[in-house]
């Protein structure tokens, strides 16, 4: 019954973080996402009110992977509205919390720390090296390339979460994520390294090439301790002095 609402839920998933706050994080967003389904499932005003209040509690996960939890919760709510079994309510509360943490960690490492920088560095690499391509290609490649994965996760996650419920991790296990993660990571390192060689060694090897290499190592180490904004000002000062010495 609820699967007819998937397009509406999918659209509302884009608003998951709209009312993000320090107290309950994505709680109100989650309620906003599943509200139309709850209205459909519970025709009795009291039951509906209870269902609404069930989903205003603390919730926080990765905004793309949240769709899996939405799928699981919708299926459970549907079951509860049909059977009225109290243990399903306990399941809803437990699974919302139990799935949120691991999926947040997965999303952070896979999307924020890997997929987004990787698609960005691929687009930037094209910007610096692809003189034969139209000038707008880097932006196009970044936007299309990046969004393929989030759209897939958001849509399929909703469907598979609804289908597999608690066993949704079995669906994720089928992707061999650690292998994919390591391969993409190596690809990203290679792209960054080639970009460095292209920009700072391409015109010839000399004392300044070694200085660039030393700066690269120094800033990789500093990046662990200092924000990029501070590093920007530091690099401008170092670059300015080096430029004057070079002249």
């Amino acid at each position, binding site marked *: 019954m609820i699967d007819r609402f998937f397009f509406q839920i999918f659209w509302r998933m*884009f*608003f998951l973080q*709209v*009312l*993000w*706050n320090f*107290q*309950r*994080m994505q709680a*109100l967003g989650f*309620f906003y996402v599943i509200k139309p389904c709850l209205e459909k499932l519970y025709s009795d*005003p009291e039951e*509906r*009110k209870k269902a609404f*209040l069930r989903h*205003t509690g603390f919730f926080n996960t990765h905004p*793309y992977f949240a769709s899996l939890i939405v799928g699981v919760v919708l299926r459970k709510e549907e079951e509860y509205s049909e059977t009225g079994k109290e243990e399903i309510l306990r399941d809803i509360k437990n699974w919302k919390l139990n799935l949120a943490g691991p999926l*947040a960690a997965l999303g952070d490492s896979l999307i*924020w*720390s*890997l997929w*987004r*920088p990787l698609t*960005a*560095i691929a687009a930037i690499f094209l910007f*610096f090296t692809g003189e034969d391509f139209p*000038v*707008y290609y*880097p*932006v196009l490649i*970044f*936007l299309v390339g990046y969004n393929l994965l*989030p759209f897939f996760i958001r849509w399929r996650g909703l469907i598979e979460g609804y289908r597999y419920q608690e066993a949704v991790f079995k669906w994720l296990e089928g992707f061999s994520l650690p292998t994919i993660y390591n391969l993409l*990571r190596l690809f*990203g*390192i290679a792209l*960054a390294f080639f970009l*460095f060689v292209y920009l700072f060694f391409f015109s010839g090897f000399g004392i300044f090439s070694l200085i*660039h290499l030393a*700066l*690269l190592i120094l*800033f*990789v180490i500093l990046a*662990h301790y200092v924000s*990029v*904004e501070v*590093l*920007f000002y530091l*690099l*401008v*000062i*170092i*670059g*300015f*002095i*080096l*430029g*004057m010495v*070079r*002249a």
Partner: protein
Amino acid sequence: MNILTLSVLVGFLGLDNVKFGQFMVSRPLVVGAIMGLFSGNFPLGLRMGVLLELLWIRVIPVGTFYPPDTVITTALACLWTIVFSRLCPEGMFAFYALLGIALAIPVGIVYKTIQINDRKRASGYNRIIEEGIESGQPDLIDHFVRMSLLKDFAGGAFFFFLFYYGGYYIIKLIPCPSSALFLKGIDYAFYLLPLLGITQVLNSFLRKKK
């Protein structure tokens, strides 16, 4: 294109940062290209976007962490660079690009604090919406969603508009440097900027996740 229209555009792009979608149209690469496109110098806007994307490639609002606003910072840095590169003699691009970024970063930090305060205030909505549900007004959440989007859009647009002119008059007061040695130093500092970006990428990928 006038600044008012660009402000509206910045307001819309800013929503993508956290509140709507996260399709990454709020990333510097895209914001820079859009600013360039709408202010008549797409290649320059894209170039600035690429440099700023490299700098902030590891940075994105996640959970309680909110970095300096990349939309406002990129839009301001791009526009100041484009405008002043047009007004000044050839060879001044690097100077205005660095000056633009250096001035835009503190603005992004100020806007970040506004966003954090907004998140603190939003904690009060939890109780209001729950009371709304209890008193038979569950649709209150739809109203809050619309208001939150509108507020974020208007805030971003106004902030950009205000600081664009503020920065514009500050940069106008700074005389164009004429010393060849000074400009060589600036050019070299600008040339080195992608290096900082590459260190950020390496730093992100070299940290193996468990």
